[in-house]
């Protein structure tokens, strides 16, 4: 069959082909100039959604890195403060050991105590450190208010922060705390009796006791408010002393008799002389006594803890009399060691978190790299392919244009 072509349509079709090829050239040109394979979602719907997800992941990773650096800065700052605090406390410990030596005169101990008071002030200001943003580092959530109050003058210390610990996102489903609450670092240290004591209390007690020339050994104070009743007893160092006011002698078997004097001071003096004269039973520490008005102070001759047995006896529940066992310097030293131990523990935690942050940093970077690679695979143009495609399209556009001109020149009318 002979195919007859409509002349005007043939022309239109020729032009259409050229237009179509121009559009293709244009599209490829756009891809090349942007360097992207996907210019709009319809170019690759599922790919472009994947791209959106990848971009969100990238943006989140960048934010995680910001958070991570934030945590790092705060932890590094905390680490520095903790280090200063540790060396402060270690210096105090040296001072304390030095102060315990009996070769020091009372004046020397007082000057040592002065330095400890200064160290206490320094410790307070360290504990009240602010970070770069003006937040208190060891205040828990109450970062706006000074967490530690008190001074070497008052000797009363309080923690006004809370136990809050802030967590930052440093990776998908990975959070890390950027600090420690002050209660954990400086307060809430248990003493040997199970009571909470702050490191400030410890330093204050140490300095005060040194200033008062307290010995390094355990001491007990027996205070007599009124003369004791007849036949009441007091047990010191395992020896039972019986107070006698009517010369009836010992009613308690094996008791050493102390004659009650005209007033409590005289009774104390009598007690002192009897105690001094008593032979120390085996297994007990030798003691030195000193009396002042109605108080008898009994001090172990050997420095250290657990040298004295606590004072007991019926007189204690009797005639308005009481005894106290004062905290000797060694207790302060133990408490200081507990505080240093706590600091080292917290520093270890901080160091461990910094390590985790470093490895998380590396993980995030790796993840970011792999996402960028995937993103590039989906989105980026294969330049070599695109340019060769572009050349091909240009060549075929030129060919179409030339062919059009050639064909349009043909007409039978030219031959008439």
């Amino acid at each position, binding site marked *: 069959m002979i195919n007859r072509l409509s002349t005007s349509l043939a022309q239109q079709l020729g032009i259409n082909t050229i237009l179509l090829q121009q559009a293709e050239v244009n599209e490829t040109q756009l891809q090349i100039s942007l360097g992207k394979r996907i210019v709009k979602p319809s170019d690759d719907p599922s790919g472009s959604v994947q791209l959106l997800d990848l971009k969100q992941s990238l*943006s989140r990773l960048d934010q995680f890195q910001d*958070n991570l650096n934030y945590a790092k800065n705060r932890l590094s700052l905390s680490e520095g403060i903790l280090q200063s605090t540790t060396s402060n406390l270690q210096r105090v410990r040296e001072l304390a050991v030095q102060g315990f030596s009996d070769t020091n005169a009372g004046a020397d101990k007082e000057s040592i105590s002065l330095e400890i008071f200064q160290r206490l002030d320094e410790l307070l200001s360290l504990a009240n450190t602010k970070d770069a943003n003006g937040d208190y580092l060891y205040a828990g959530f109450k970062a*706006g208010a000074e967490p530690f109050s008190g001074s070497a003058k008052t000797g009363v210390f309080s923690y006004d922060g809370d136990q809050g610990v802030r967590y930052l996102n440093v990776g998908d489903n990975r959070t890390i705390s950027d600090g420690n609450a002050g209660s954990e670092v400086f307060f809430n240290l248990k003493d040997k009796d199970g009571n909470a004591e702050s490191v400030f209390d410890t330093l204050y007690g140490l300095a005060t006791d040194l200033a008062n020339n307290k010995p390094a050994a355990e001491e007990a104070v027996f205070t007599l408010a009124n003369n004791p009743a007849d036949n009441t007893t007091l047990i010191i160092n395992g020896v039972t002393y019986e107070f006698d006011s009517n010369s009836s002698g010992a009613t308690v078997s094996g008791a050493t008799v102390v004659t009650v004097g005209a007033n409590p001071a005289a009774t104390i003096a009598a007690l002192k002389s009897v105690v001094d004269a008593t032979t120390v039973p085996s297994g007990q520490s030798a003691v030195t006594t000193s009396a002042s008005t109605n108080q008898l102070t009994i001090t172990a001759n050997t420095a250290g803890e657990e040298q004295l047995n606590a004072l007991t006896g019926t007189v204690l529940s009797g005639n308005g009399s009481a005894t106290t066992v004062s905290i000797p310097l060694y207790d302060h030293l133990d408490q200081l060691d507990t505080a240093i131990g706590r600091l080292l523990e917290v520093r270890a935690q901080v160091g461990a978190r910094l390590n985790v942050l470093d490895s998380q940093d590396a993980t995030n970077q790796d993840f970011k790299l792999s996402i960028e690679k995937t993103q590039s695979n989906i989105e980026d143009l294969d330049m070599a392919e695109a340019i060769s495609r572009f050349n091909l399209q240009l060549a075929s556009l030129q060919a179409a244009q030339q062919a059009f001109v050639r064909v349009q020149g043909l007409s039978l009318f030219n031959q008439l």
Partner: protein
Amino acid sequence: MAGDLLLTGLSGLSAFRNALDTTGHNISNATTEGYSRQSVRLDARDPQFSGFGYVGVGVDSTGVTRAYNEFLATQFRSSSSATADLESYFDLTSQIDNVLANENVGLSGALQSFFNAVQSVSDDPTSIPARQVLLSEGESLEDRFGTLDKLFDDLTIQVNGKLKESVADLNTLAENIASLNNKIVSITGGGGGKIPNDLLDQRDNLVDQLSEKVNVSTVRQADGSMNVFIGSGQALVLNGEASSLGLQPKGYDMRTLDLVLKQPVGDIIITQFMTGGEIGGALRFREEVLDPSMNSLGQIALSLSHTFNEQHSNGLDLNGAQGADFFTAPSITPNQLTGTGSLSVAVNNTTGLTTSDYTLTATGGNYTITRLSDNSVVAGPTAFATSATVDGLTFNTATLANGDSYRIRPTRDAAGDIKLSLKDPRTIAVAGAALSTVNPLNSGSGGIGDISVSGLSASTIPSNTITYDASNAAYNANNGYGVSTGTGTLSYNSTTKSYNLNTGSGTIDFTLTGSPANGDTIVLSNNSGGVGDNRNAHFLANLQTDLTLMGGTASFQDTYGTIVADVGRNAKAAESNGLAQRGLLDQTIVSKANVSGVNLDEEAANLIRFQQAYQAASQVILTSRTIFDTLLGAFR
């Protein structure tokens, strides 16, 4: 006399003259749109009997016919409709397509920046600049929702404009076809049944133009007139009468137009019957791309504002006050179509939300709610007094009246309505509302693990002390813990291993860590002054990836990704189908032109052919004269 050579010659002369005229007509109309090539039909005249046989007496021009194929014309129109449909659909869709994934206009980038800003605040809760940045990012998120909503609105207007233009064209075309019908009928009658080819071409051309606007079908009448039907059979032209189309706003949305057929008794909505062509494409775009995109975007806006506000209200701001609304949550306004009652609809939970519209009808004291996406009845018939919670929405039905009907479009306008509500950076609720304090003198290692607050109704949570008691039976019901001071009620969930303390002003959910010893206490109290706390910001930041949409299967970003993918897929499909359809159309145009088109080379050849025949016929006349002269000469 047998045969008159002169008359025979003359008949040839006039026949070829007609053929030449027609060829000239063809050449002149070589580029006329819709023109069909014409040719003169020549028939030999009835011969004369002259004893020995029949002698021919020349030729007659019996008619002018146009080269026209009804089948190809129909095929052309259906291809033309399909192509115009896809191209108009693609043109509109690509306007969204280009924008959605654009980092500067799309929602994705703004969502990321917003949640990054939340995390920055979480890094440094007391920093006013960081909080200010979060407010600015909240504002640009609002702007981004607004921009996209505006884009969708503009496209609604564009669709309306396209419909208006097409309806005007349709009406003009219909009138012209009707008047041509009249003309053709009267001319055909007057011309003794001879057909005016050029008028038919004109009419066919008008129908071709019609096919670009909408699907068209034709029925030819015996008297030569043509009845034209559009869409799925709506009569546009019947003989010499043209119907008129118009537009009117939809009952439940003044911004969306419906197509109507104007009738003296009242306009009939025919939108749903209009398929194919520019009108069909625009309507399809509105239904398949625009409305779902708007609804999905609104779904994100609605869900984001509700979930963010809810979490925000469970925290404390820098002043220690309970978090106020962060965003102004878009409200849902049901469109009342009929009736005198009233209805209010509120969001109950965002995970259940769909992008569908709903209708509610009230009769006989009962109401029925229908979800339009799948046309299923989702609630009812239920009495007015009982409100319904359907797909995350609560329908407050108490004030309905019989005869009411409503259309509810929960997510339609949300994207344009979401607004940043907070102005003061100090009022961003970054801190958690509850604080746990472990007694430092506890001998065990028990402590609080995760802790969160919900349903906070005042900024101050009453203080409660919980104590571990290894022996007390009442406490053992709560895994050993009980409230020893305070008025809260503690309960333990053994499946999730979590505790729940209802304090009367907010519920504290927490888990416990370590192993407590008998008598250990933990105090749960309010977090006043906790300016360095970032726990609520942490929860807020988590909303970015929490699956809060589509029944708990998608995050905000996922849902947005669905819009991008759907639009992209639709655009891609329309583009490739459009190209294929365009190819088919081109094929049909070629086939049609092969039949009807003018080939100038052919016409040139015809010109030569008919010219030569004309010359030959004049030679016949010359010969006839010569014969006559010869005869006369014989008698001279």
